[in-house]
């Protein structure tokens, strides 16, 4: 039982980085960016390729994240400069990235042999899961710290204003397109970082590892928002970690119940649908309760 909790925390920390990346476009810009499912394996592919070619783990991870930022740049430019709707932009970049990832890896799957050094082998707590928690924890902390600082700078305030009210931000001289592109790049950089870390902890990068990741990230965000409503930016990012861990726990529990792993993505989708509908269901149930009381009062 404790094992499941610890492994869920280690996985949750890595997924949280992706969820935070998705949060930037999804909640701050109010854009549904599907580039995620291409930039996640992109980060994994770049890092795996670099590690196998002998690059050090820190640099290989950084390259992975930068690759994601570049993918974000492409989506950002398509969306803002060519005015392609956000959903289509994501699909375009994601589709293109499939080939790019294949070029980078040279084949559909790259394994990291045991002797390949990863960011997780930089520390040694005597147990791979604890290594993941330590490195993942440090990464998430750095990411959240940097984002909180950035989104409270002059430029960061501008970026948040763009997501809030574009007429207002333009009237105050903020270049909406540039700000959106910056957030696109940050977002996909983080998503690729998550993919890079995931490849290093799993020991392989796979062409199809991006499929379904957006749903996992969104679920973490929605769980966080159901747990606590209306939080400041920094606190919200911290609750997203909790959301990601809870989600891993649910998955672990489901697998433990003997659900066919092949049915897992169907389960991901159903569960996210449930989470999204939960606020409405809560409201309905409350209203039914109130009406029942009201009927009795009115008798």
């Amino acid at each position, binding site marked *: 039982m404790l094992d499941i909790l610890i492994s869920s925390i280690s996985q949750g920390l890595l997924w949280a980085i992706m969820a935070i990346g998705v949060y930037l476009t999804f909640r701050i810009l109010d854009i549904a960016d599907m580039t995620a499912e291409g930039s996640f394996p992109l980060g994994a592919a770049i890092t795996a390729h670099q590690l196998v070619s002998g690059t050090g783990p820190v640099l290989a991870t950084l390259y992975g994240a930068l690759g994601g930022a570049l993918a974000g740049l492409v989506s950002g430019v398509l969306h803002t400069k060519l005015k392609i709707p956000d959903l289509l932009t994501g699909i375009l970049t994601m589709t293109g990235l499939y080939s790019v990832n294949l070029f980078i890896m040279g084949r559909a799957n790259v394994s990291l042999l045991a002797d390949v050094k990863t960011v997780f082998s930089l520390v040694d707590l005597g147990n791979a899961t604890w290594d993941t928690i330590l490195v993942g924890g440090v990464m998430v902390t750095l990411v959240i710290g940097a984002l909180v600082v*950035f989104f*409270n*700078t*002059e*430029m*960061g*305030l*501008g970026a*948040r*204003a763009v997501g*809030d*009210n574009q*007429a*207002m*931000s*333009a*009237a*105050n*001289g*903020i*270049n*909406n397109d540039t700000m959106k592109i910056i957030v696109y790049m940050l977002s996909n950089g983080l998503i690729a970082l998550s993919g890079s870390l995931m490849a290093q902890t799993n020991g392989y990068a796979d062409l199809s590892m991006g499929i379904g990741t957006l749903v996992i990230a969104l679920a973490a965000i929605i769980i966080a928002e159901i747990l606590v409503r209306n939080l400041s930016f920094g606190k919200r990012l911290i609750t997203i970690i909790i959301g990601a861990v809870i989600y891993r726990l649910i998955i672990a529990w489901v697998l433990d119940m003997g659900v066919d792993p092949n049915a897992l993505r169907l389960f991901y989708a159903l569960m996210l649908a449930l989470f999204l509908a939960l606020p409405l269901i809560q409201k309905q149930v409350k209203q039914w309760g109130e009406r029942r009381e009201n009927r009795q009062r009115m008798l």
Partner: protein
Amino acid sequence: MPALVVRELHQYFEKGTVNENHALKGIDLTLEPGEFVAIIGGNGAGKSTLLNSVAGSIPVTHGQIKIGDQDVTYQNVAKRARLIARVFQDPKAGTAPRLTVEENLSLAQKRGQWRNFWANGVKKRDRALFREKLASLGLGLEDRLTAEIGLLSGGQRQAVTLLMATLQAPELLLLDEHTAALDPQTSATVMQLTAQLVAAQNITTLMITHNMQDALNYGNRLIMLDHGRIAVDLKGDQKQGLTVADLLRLFKEQSGQELNDDAVLLS
């Protein structure tokens, strides 16, 4: 040098189709520094089109717009923001709802300037200034610097938007029926506040209003638009002592047609 020059400005909507609408038919308008112009006119007269053309939210393809010595004809809204501040009709439109009051003020303080990614968005030293400015509104907002601005009422938000627009004095202030969405009492308060802020820094102002009485009471120049043309233009003394009835008569003389008071008041 004039503060604003609009020359031979035409605007067409859906040009070349059966629905073509020639919304502005050659507007020539020059504003001297410190002029506070009220613009009135019925539905479809071109008031908003004129203001949007000056602001940059409608691209200009016929004519020229200069602010001070700068030709802004082909600049977008964000580019013009270093010269222009704007208050919209919808109180929600002028502020970013999920940002706090002080964050909104800080954003406006840097209107049109480069925003650094190393400098704090809200600076400690500015808080005292913000508090003092907010206190001058008399709405009790000085204690709500860290409240999300979306939680404020429409009137409060519009007052803060006005403050934001004048925090860094613009070359030109555009007011787009900025009291129209407020209840009569709040509307009057915001209108007085406008006059105060504009006078304090002698800001050149272009104000659209649907309220003829406000147009007569406030500002030192009055322009009436009709079918995309300037029908009446009254400056300083000419405007003194005028009544709504005088305005209606003037309009009839200039445009050759009757103007229904309601058409102006209710549009």
